[in-house]
């Protein structure tokens, strides 16, 4: 990633130094040690003081763990359900059942691919209306049979295509919002990467919101915000900061309930640890919601949503 370049240069230098035979040039040993210390300091500074835009880039890192990775590592007995029963099956949206540490749940998740082939099939994680309608179908199933809902957010947004508009992208998203607000089962949302606008929100609110440290969740993409404000998408850096889209921002505002830390450099540097940490957070959230009655859950979720917003007057 762009902001990692100074670090990468030092690391390259270190690597070449290490290739030298130290028996010929013993004075290099000290230089190497110093360089290693320097790299450690820079790494620390670089990743602890990440700007929002840098976090957005980490959230988009191609090696970052994806919905599929969480499904594979955290869940047993996974059953994928396909189709909206209306028009198609959208591979950009996972819908199904799974068992998380012994607990049966319904799972929804945006689905980016691991490679170009998968990404083409999955439209790079941007759902068509069929994906949202499949998600809504699963919400109703979960509600009928008392399965808690766990969702994984990782999308740049709903796909803005001609056919998507013609087939009611807006209505499909609205349908999810209405359904998710009324399901009488616990809903736990995890933001694991990108949280782009309405396409993320469609499966992106509930009784708990857990965010990875470098996940972002935003009303608009930084690039489009910059385009609107400055007619210059390259000012996304600045826009990212204005939008308050980081996990820390959401936690501070009470929109997120918990931020799960990532290793230095981002989740992709140690996927197993990050996935396990999300598993712990999910499990704890589900435990905390397990005793609440169906009616109380819906009332509490409604009140949670109703409380969001800052305005003047009363």
């Amino acid at each position, binding site marked *: 990633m762009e902001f990692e370049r100074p670090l990468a240069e030092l690391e390259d230098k270190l690597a070449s130094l290490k290739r030298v035979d130290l028996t010929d040039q013993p004075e290099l040993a000290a230089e190497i040690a110093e360089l290693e210390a320097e790299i450690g300091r820079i790494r620390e500074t670089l990743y602890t003081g990440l700007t929002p835009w840098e976090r957005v880039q980490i959230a988009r890192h191609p090696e970052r763990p994806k919905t599929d990775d969480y499904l594979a590592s955290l869940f047993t007995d996974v059953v994928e359900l396909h189709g909206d029963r209306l028009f198609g099956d959208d591979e950009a949206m996972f819908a199904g059942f799974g068992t998380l540490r012994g607990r049966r749940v319904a799972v929804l998740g945006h689905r980016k691919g691991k490679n170009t082939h998968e990404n083409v099939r999955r439209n790079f994680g941007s759902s068509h209306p069929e994906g949202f309608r499949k998600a809504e179908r699963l919400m109703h199933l979960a509600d009928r049979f008392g399965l808690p809902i766990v969702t994984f957010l990782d999308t740049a947004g*709903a*796909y*803005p*295509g*001609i056919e*998507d*508009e*013609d*087939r*009611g*992208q*807006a*209505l499909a*998203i*609205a*349908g999810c*919002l*209405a*359904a*998710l*607000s*009324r399901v009488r089962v616990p809903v736990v949302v995890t933001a694991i990467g990108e949280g782009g*606008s*309405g396409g993320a*929100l469609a499966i992106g*609110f509930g009784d708990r919101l857990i965010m990875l440290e470098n996940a972002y*969740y*935003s*009303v*608009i993409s930084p690039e*489009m*915000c910059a385009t*609107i*404000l*400055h007619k210059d998408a390259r000012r996304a850096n*600045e*826009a990212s900061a*204005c*939008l*308050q*889209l980081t996990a820390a*921002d*959401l936690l501070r*505002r009470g*929109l997120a309930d918990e931020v799960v830390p990532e290793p230095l450099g981002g989740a992709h540097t140690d996927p197993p640890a990050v996935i396990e940490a999300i598993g712990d957070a999910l499990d704890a959230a589900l435990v905390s919601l397990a005793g609440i009655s169906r009616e109380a859950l819906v009332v509490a*979720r*409604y009140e949670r*949503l*109703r409380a*969001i*917003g*800052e*305005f*003047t*007057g*009363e």
Partner: protein
Amino acid sequence: MPISDWFKAREQRRYTAPTTTVSVADVPDGVWVRCEGCKRTLYMGDLERSEMVCPSCGKHHDITAPERLALLIDEGTFAEMDADLSSGDPLDFTSGKAYADQVVAAQERTGLPEAIVTGTASIGGHRVVIGVMDFRFIGASMGSAVGEKIARAFEMAATLRHPLVMVTASGGARMQEGMLSLMQMAKTSAAAARLAEMRVPYVAVLTNPTMGGVTASFATLADVIIAEPGALIGFAGPRLVEQTIRKSLPKGFQTAEALLEHGMIDMVVDRRELASTLALVLGYLQPGDE
């Protein structure tokens, strides 16, 4: 001007010459305007008498929330709700034009505290709760105050068990309030879903333009969806769609008429028949048994 005063001054009211779609011609006193639909020069009085629908080509020019209310509701029946609610600046958003300044400017320009006016009223004798968005106010984008007023309108309809009528126009979520705005989509949808569970009717009137987070939330969760002719209605903005697919958009894309053909709305109704159509529809939509 507060809505209450505005109604008192109803006799003197004039439609706003909507500079976005009608350009005031350089004749004295702005008495003549040019229709952007047919490019003809019209006498403003004629345009007003036909409710800002061009008598020549039928183009529906944008109107303000007070104008809309005057057209739709039975005279003297409007009682405004939540008139003192308006936007804060929770993110201290100063990139581009400072948000706080934009709000003040919009308030001064429109005489409205926020981008939506809500209240109770009658339409053709039917008691309703009504909300009308005003596109002049920062594109009637939905921030915290707009979302709150909408949620309260749904809740008032639930309490009174009176049908809700929402007249929308919006560019979508208000980005200057960040995630607080995005969450208004969930909040208003939850309020709509709750009203639906209570079997209280909800009719939406989508006017030009209704886009983004408003179309993708409460606006399309109505029992009956009406749109005005030619209104632009969609999720993604046309420019974004064009950039994404890298080809030009089909004629009529995202118009009310296209949405009708694609099965997304119930009817396209001429503004001059909107009040009577609403009254007709409301006659059928009595709140159901709980």
